[in-house]
């Protein structure tokens, strides 16, 4: 069910223009190394993408 | 089981959008916009969509209430009107007519608004009449 929802929401966000900011990964509590890797890579990816345009817009409104 | 749809006009603001009440067995179940109404053309604001809530609300007043010793007691219309008239009369005598102000509203009819301002100007004798929209 989670995969279904995530697949749908990723496509929906792509339609909205917020592509690639959502990711799903299954990690057990014993796979600490994998967790570190995934989080680091994702953080780097997001950093490259730049700030979320939504945040900029809501900041403007305030 | 009986199902009827009754067209009406929204009672909230002065725009007067057309609404359609879904009445099942004599009770208003939900509110729909009237699509062929020239004013709103099938659209409503959030107040209009929820007209059925206040109509069926348990918080509606069923009878006049008079406050005696800090508590509200049920009264008849005659008692309530007499008490109100006496109270207003007391204030008018002690402080003069300009101590009383009257607020009219978009929720009541034009005729009732006219009556209210006539009462303020002729019966009480003051110009202090205003409208809830100016608040």
């Amino acid at each position, binding site marked *: 069910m989670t995969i279904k929802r995530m697949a*749908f929401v990723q496509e929906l966000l792509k339609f*909205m223009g917020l592509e690639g900011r959502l990711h799903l990964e299954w990690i057990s509590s014993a796979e600490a190394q994998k967790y570190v890797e995934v989080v680091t890579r994702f953080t780097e990816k997001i950093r490259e993408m730049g700030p979320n345009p939504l945040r900029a817009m809501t900041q403007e409104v305030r | *089981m*009986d199902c009827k749809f009754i067209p009406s006009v929204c009672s909230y603001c002065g725009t007067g959008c057309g609404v359609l009440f879904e009445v*099942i067995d004599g009770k208003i179940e939900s509110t729909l916009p009237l699509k062929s109404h020239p004013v709103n053309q099938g659209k*409503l604001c959030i107040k209009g969509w929820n007209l059925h809530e206040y109509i069926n609300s348990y918080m509606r007043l069923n009878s006049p209430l008079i406050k005696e010793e800090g508590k509200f007691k049920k009264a008849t219309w005659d008692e309530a009107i007499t008490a109100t008239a006496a109270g207003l009369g007391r204030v008018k005598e002690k402080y003069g007519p300009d101590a009383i102000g009257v607020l009219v509203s978009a929720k009541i009819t034009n005729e009732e608004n006219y009556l209210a301002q006539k009462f303020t100007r002729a019966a009480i004798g003051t110009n202090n009449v205003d409208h809830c929209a100016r608040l």
Partner: protein
Amino acid sequence: MDIINEARQLLVQEKVDIFLGYRELDGHLIPHGYTRDNLDELEGLCVSQNRYPLEKTATHLAKKDPDLKIGLVARDCNQRTLNVLYTWNQLDPEHIKTIGVNCCPSPFKDHGDCTYLAPKTTGEYKKEHGIDFNAAPDLLLDSMTNPERFSRWMYEFNKCLKCYGCRNICPVCFCRECSLEHEGLIEPGALPAEVPIFHLVRATHMAGRCIDCGLCEDACPAHIPLRLLYREANEIVSGIFDFQPGMGVEKSPFSIIGDKIEAELKPLDA
């Protein structure tokens, strides 16, 4: 078009207890429930060019009396709505009888542009006030880049007044506790609306449910292109799960837990 006789047959033969159709009152064509007690009222039965969500009334009636047999006039979109409500267990197909009527566009309602109909045309009203997405179907899609798409949608969503009209009139929306009324998500009474959370949450709930009847866009006072958004959501669903709501008795993929599917998410480095 002998609906009057058909309806009378259904009522008299006790196949239905109440028949939901339309009638004219003071120049307005509004819905009405015809019963066996007032059979002569059936003379006024007509099909309205204005569309109302009669299926929602049917769900209210069914909630009060689950054994009630209800008859409806049904265009194609109404039939699809009924199919969806059957799969979500809101109505019992044994208790519903429909009389099929012609589809839009009709001479009055000239902005019918249902995806399930062919040929696809857009009415004059829609061309003036809304987005004509039959002329340029990828107006908001691949032809634009991410920032353009984002700002265009944010512009549209910012018009929202949070009237909940889209949700109230939607014939397949039936949740008793709507998540759009949860104080943690959408603060009650706060305007401007929580853009784009409100609309994206609604779009997610419409995935696998929306049958493109267009009542939401008709009811939106701000002319937001909701139909396009929900249509896109259902295209995503049909692309990933190969499921089209309203076409049969298949249950929506979002209502089944624990089945194995083959959808794959995009990998991290894509």
